[in-house]
């Protein structure tokens, strides 16, 4: 059996601490809990956890600030917990290096899925990146620039391919609109969400069996997109 992954929860609500401790322990995770930003930063440095779950609403400091300070010295995956109303903060935290987010209230299933993605991502970032990415009937060969769907090659324009390749090489992570625009179109397009919307719509028509109910590229309303690969 592989060693238990260690999770640091930075969250100030006692009941949430209690629930997370119980749930995560039951799923064979080792859990440390910090009730403030300061304590969280100290514990992260002392215990070197495998993943950090960070609540954005902390009593002593801004969750985004905690994220920034962590990213100055570590690439430990960070999953953000937040409430629905602060899309702006979520985008800021994701842009500052957080890997994923969960909106309170969330289901245990979602939480565990995010944790698994974070673990895989950590494992991959330490090894060789994948060159062939598979999502259902979709295969993207990043070295040969070939996209096939159910064995048939899909013809993509240059920008469509760049967009898909960028999403696929960061598979299962949520990528914010500004982030995608910067990396696919260039820094000056950071706020031009319409490009992303239009190209994403075209891309989905080519890749998805039901473009209205996408399964490969999911929308994260108000935040960004997520490319889903097979587990």
């Amino acid at each position, binding site marked *: 059996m592989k060693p238990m992954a260690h999770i640091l929860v930075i969250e100030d609500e006692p009941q949430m601490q209690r629930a997370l401790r119980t749930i995560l322990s039951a799923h064979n995770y080792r859990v440390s809990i910090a009730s403030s930003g300061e304590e969280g930063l100290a514990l992260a440095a002392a215990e070197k956890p495998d993943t950090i779950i960070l609540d954005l609403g902390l009593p002593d400091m801004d969750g985004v600030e905690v994220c920034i300070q962590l990213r100055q010295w570590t690439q430990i995956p960070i999953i953000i917990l937040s409430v629905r*109303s602060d899309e702006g903060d979520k985008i800021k935290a994701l842009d500052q290096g957080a890997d994923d987010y969960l909106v309170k209230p969330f289901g245990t299933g979602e939480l565990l899925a995010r944790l698994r993605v974070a673990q895989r991502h950590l494992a991959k970032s330490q090894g060789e990146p994948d060159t062939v990415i598979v999502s259902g009937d979709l295969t993207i060969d990043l070295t040969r620039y070939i996209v096939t769907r159910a064995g048939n090659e899909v013809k993509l324009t240059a920008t469509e391919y760049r967009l898909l390749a960028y999403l696929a090489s960061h598979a299962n992570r949520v990528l914010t609109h500004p982030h995608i625009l910067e990396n696919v179109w260039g820094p000056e397009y950071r706020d*031009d969400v319409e490009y992303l919307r*239009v190209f994403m719509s075209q891309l989905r028509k080519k890749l998805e069996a039901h473009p209205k109910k996408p399964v490969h590229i999911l929308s994260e309303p*108000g935040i960004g997109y997520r490319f889903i690969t097979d587990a």
Partner: protein
Amino acid sequence: MRPFTIPDVSRQFRFLKHQLFVFGLAMVPVSLMTAALFLLRDSLNTSTVALLFLIPVMISTSLWGLFSGVFSAFAAFLAYNYFFLQPYYTFNVHDSQDIITLLIFLAVAVFNSQLVGRVRSGLAAAVARERETTLLYELSLDLAGAGSPAEIAAVLARKTADTAQATNLEVSIGPIYGDPSFQLSIPENTPPDVTPHVVIPLETVRASVGQIRVWLQVPPLTPGQERLLRAFAAQGTLALERMALAHTETRAQVLEESDRLKSALLSSVTHELRTPLATIKASTTSLISDEIPWETPARHDLLSVIDEETDYLNYLVGNLLDMSRIEAGALKPKRHWNILSEIIDGVLVRLHRILSGFTVDIHIPDDLPVVPVDYSQMEQVFINLLTNSAKYAPQGSTIRLEANLQDENTALVSVKNEGPQVNPDNLDRIFDKFYRITEPEKVSGTGLGLSICKGIVEAHGGRIWAENVPGGLAFRFTIPLRLDGNSPPQIEAEDL
């Protein structure tokens, strides 16, 4: 104080001329009477003549006043003495009775003049009072039409200036009743740098609210004018007070209304929050209890109930949060160019459970331009409209979603359901907070969904309304297609 003035010689001369003219006039009735009586001298005795001579005395007194009366009394006595008393044609007075006749003539003149004078001054007073009443009536009419302290001041200034024949006038009011203090001068320059002739305070029972300063053409004011001006000021103050009361009452009404809304919210919210909480509590306590070893399907049922109810609670809290943001004016849409059908597709996926019993028809042309909206807020609009449709329309019916260009600058979206129609009088009201067509007990929800839609659509610069359509109800709203003055960008398709 009346200043001392040098007597005006020409004025005195004119007065003298006037008196001489009056004396001349007074001679006319006396002469006529003398002539008439002289002709009848033989058939009249002296006491009758004396009585008849009272007539010209009374005429002169009544028409031309005391002086001419006295003058004609003397003239009548002399004529009586000369022509009618023995010996004729002498002014000799033989009898003390004749002196009495003279005294009676004089007394008649004096009394008569006083009587006439009293009637005259009574008439003059009545006329003056009528004028005052008319002026006051006009003032109160004008004041009734005045809606602000400034308008009241303008009315007061105009009337006061007319009545007092002021050269300059200044009304200052306030600061009162939340309106800033201000001054109004007639004519429209600054008032003269000298002490005003009259200062009339504007005073309520409690405090002074201002004053009217008047500079006169011909100082001082007559008592009548002064009385009138004070009455004007009193009317003006009353008008100001009435307005202040109206202000206070409106504020009290607004407060009361907001109190009423708050308690409606509280009762609605407690009812709505408690229902899912009760279900959750019942399910969890059952599961915790050791009394019954729950079979797996039953356990799963209870847990699904809890799961669904927590989602519903979350939706309710979200609605309350949105509403409070709309109320606080904190709903600032982050508008970007978005594809409407992408928003709708996402909503349909999220609402699949609620919409499972309905057919959802979507008609959005492929060439509909991108729309400048806040993605999450627009999602909320569709979620609320669709949830509302699902709540009222019968299971198995069709919900039709359409979007079109109304004109080149506006998109028109409509959500049609086959639910009950709404009384045309209430079509506007369904977007009010807590308004429900049906009894609150029969349908769940906070009664906030549509008013949130309204708040969001209006924050986007659009308009939302409901229409009865054949076989159902349609919600329609517009989205202006301009973002920072730009029309929707055309993004060119790329070649392969």
